[in-house]
C-alpha cells in the first residue's frame, strides 16, 4: 500500500531508478538536472550501490558502457549540451547492444543556449542520437507520476531488447513538485538472462567481448540487419501514445511532455468557444506513433496542429505520419518561452477560422 509523496521531478527520477534496481549512477552536474546526481549521491551509498560523479559527461557515458557491459543496471542523466557530448558513447552502447537508461532534462539551445525548458532535442533523440544506423527508444512523460512509471518501464525495455533507452523531460518537469506514488513493479516481461555480459569468464568456455567494431563489410551489414530487426520489434511492441477527444475533432493538437499538459487546457478553452479540439500525445517519441494518425485521419476537419517548445522538430514526424492526407500546422516557442494556452488557442482560431 504505497502513499503519495510530494517530490521534485529530478528527485523522483532518482527514486524511481533506485526502485527499478538501478545499481550504478554516473553523472555530471548541468542545469537543470543536477539534483538527480545530488539525490543519487545521498541515497546510493546508504544502499550499497554505486554513485560516481564523473569528470565529464563523456566519461560518464563510458562508465555506463563499462557497467552495462558487465550486465549491471545503470543510469546517467544530463541536459542537452551534455547529451551532445554523450553522442559517441550512445552510438557505442547501441552498437554493442548494451542496456542502460539515459535521462535528458532538455534546456534551450543551440550551443550553451539557456537553462529554461525546451523541446529542441527531439531530432537528436529520435533520429538515432549519434552516428550510424540506430534508434533508441525515447519516452516523453508529461507528469512526474508518468516519469516515475516510465523509468521502471525503461529499465525493462532496455534489458529486454539490449538497448539504451532515453527518458526525455524538460526543465519544467525536472524542477516542479507534484504528488507521486511509487507503485510496486508489476512487469509481465520475461527478461532474458545476460549471458553476453563480460563480467569475468568464471569458467565459461569462451570469453565474452563487448564490442561494436566489425571490420568486414559482410559482418557489419549482418550486424546492422540484426539491429534493424530489433528496432522493428520495438516499434511493433513498445509504441505508446494517448488520444484525447479525437472522435470528431475540428482540429487535433499533437504535443508531448509539458506542452501536452498545456494543450489539455487549450482543449477546455476551445470547447468554451465551441471548437472541438482533440489531442494526440505521443508517449514514445521513438518509435513515433504513426498509428495514432491513421486512427484519427478521418476524424479531423482541419488536420493537425503540432505544438512544441522548439522551432519545429516533431512536426516533421507528424507530416511523415500524415502523408499529405490532411493539413499539418505548427505552433512553437523557443528560448524557454512556455507557450500560453491563450496563444495556442489564437493559433487554433487562425486555422479553424471563423467557419465553425
Amino acid at each position: 500500500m504505497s502513499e503519495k509523496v510530494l517530490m521534485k521531478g529530478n528527485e523522483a527520477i532518482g527514486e524511481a531508478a533506485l526502485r527499478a534496481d538501478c545499481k550504478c549512477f554516473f553523472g555530471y552536474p548541468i542545469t537543470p538536472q543536477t539534483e538527480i546526481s545530488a539525490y543519487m549521491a545521498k541515497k546510493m551509498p546508504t544502499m550499497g550501490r554505486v554513485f560516481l560523479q564523473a569528470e565529464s559527461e563523456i566519461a560518464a557515458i563510458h562508465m555506463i558502457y563499462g557497467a552495462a557491459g558487465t550486465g549491471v543496471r545503470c543510469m546517467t542523466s544530463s541536459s542537452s549540451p551534455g547529451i551532445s557530448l554523450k553522442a559517441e558513447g550512445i552510438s557505442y552502447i547501441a552498437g554493442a547492444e548494451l542496456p542502460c537508461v539515459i535521462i535528458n532534462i532538455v534546456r534551450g539551445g543551440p550551443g550553451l543556449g539557456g537553462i529554461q525548458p525546451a523541446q529542441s532535442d527531439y531530432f537528436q533523440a529520435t533520429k538515432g542520437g549519434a552516428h550510424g544506423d540506430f534508434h533508441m527508444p525515447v519516452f516523453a512523460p508529461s507528469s512526474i507520476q508518468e516519469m516515475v512509471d516510465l523509468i521502471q518501464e525503461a529499465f525493462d525495455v532496455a534489458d529486454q531488447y539490449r538497448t539504451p533507452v532515453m527518458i526525455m523531460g524538460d526543465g519544467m518537469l525536472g524542477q516542479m513538485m507534484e504528488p507521486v506514488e511509487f507503485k510496486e513493479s508489476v512487469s509481465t516481461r520475461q527478461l532474458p538472462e545476460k549471458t553476453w555480459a563480460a563480467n569475468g569468464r568464471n569458467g565459461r568456455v569462451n570469453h565474452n567481448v563487448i564490442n561494436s567494431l566489425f571490420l568486414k563489410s559482410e559482418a557489419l551489414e549482418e550486424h546492422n540487419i540484426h539491429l534493424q530487426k530489433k528496432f522493428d520489434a520495438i516499434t511493433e511492441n513498445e509504441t505508446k501514445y494517448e488520444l484525447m477527444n479525437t472522435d470528431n475533432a475540428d482540429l487535433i493538437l499533437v504535443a508531448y511532455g509539458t506542452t501536452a499538459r498545456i494543450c489539455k487546457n487549450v482543449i477546455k478553452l476551445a470547447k468554451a468557444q465551441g471548437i472541438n479540439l482533440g489531442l494526440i500525445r505521443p508517449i514514445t517519441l521513438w518509435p513515433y506513433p504513426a498509428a495514432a494518425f491513421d486512427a484519427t485521419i478521418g476524424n479531423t476537419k482541419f488536420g493537425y496542429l503540432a505544438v512544441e517548445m522548439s522551432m519545429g522538430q516533431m512536426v516533421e514526424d507528424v507530416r511523415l505520419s500524415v502523408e499529405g492526407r490532411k493539413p499539418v500546422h505548427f505552433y512553437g516557442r523557443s528560448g524557454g518561452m512556455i507557450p500560453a494556452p491563450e496563444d495556442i488557442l489564437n493559433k487554433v482560431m487562425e486555422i479553424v477560422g471563423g467557419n465553425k
Partner: protein
Amino acid sequence: MENNREILFKPTSGLLDVPTHYCPGCTHGVIHRLIGEVMEELDIVDKTIGVAPVGCSVLAYDYFACDMFEAAHGRAPAVATGIKRANPDKIVFTYQGDGDLAAIGTAEAVHVAARGEKIVTIFVNNCIYGMTGGQMAPTTLPGQKTETSPYGRDVATQGYPIRFSEMVAQLDGSYYIERVSVDKVAGVAKTKKAIKKAFQNAIDGKGYNLVEVLSICPTNWGLNTEESLGWLRENMIPYYPLGVKKDLSKEEAK
C-alpha cells in the same frame, strides 16, 4: 613427442592462440604476452576484464583470453571505472597507446589516477600514432619526423612531449607508477615484473597502477627491428627515464 621433457618456456594460456595483425617486430605482441603470462601465473584469467583502446591494439579484444571490452578512443579508463565499480571483486585493466591515453583520453587517464581506481593501465608509448599511419603523438620527441611533423617536431608550434608517468605520479590517488622498456631481454624481464606487481596490487585492492612501456614501431619509424630497438635506446630512454615514479607499497611497508 616432447611429452617427457620439461618445458622452460611456452606460449601462455593468458592469450588466445591466434595469429595477430601486428607488424613484424612490433612489441605489442611482447607486451600482450607478458600480460597473458602474468594473468596465468596469478591465476586470474577467469576474473579479469580487459579494456582495449582504439589504435593498433584495437583488436586486442580478440587476443586476450579474459573477458574483454572494446572502448571508444581515449575512454578506456572511464569504461574500466564503470566495470570495476560495478564489479569490485574483478581485476580490471586498460591497455592504451599514446593517442588513446595522452591525447584524446588525457582527462580520463588523469582522473582514473586521481580517483585511485583499483585497476591497472598498461600504457604503450612508441612516440607515434601507428594505426592511422604515423602521425605525431603527444609523446613524439622534439625534432622527430612524422606524417604531421614532416620537418621534425617543432616545439615552438607543436609543443613539447608529455612525460605521463611523472605527471600522474604527482596525484595522491596514484599507487604504483613505473616506466619500463622492452628493448632488450633484461628490459622485458623488468617489464613483466612491473606488470605482475601492478596486477598483484589490483588483486590486493590497491590502486591506481600504471606501467608505461617504451615500445618500438618499426613500420612508422621506417626502421627494421634492430634499428628500432637502437632508436628507442638512444632517443626515447634519455627523454623518458626508466624507473619507479611512485610506489606507495614502499610507504606502507615502513
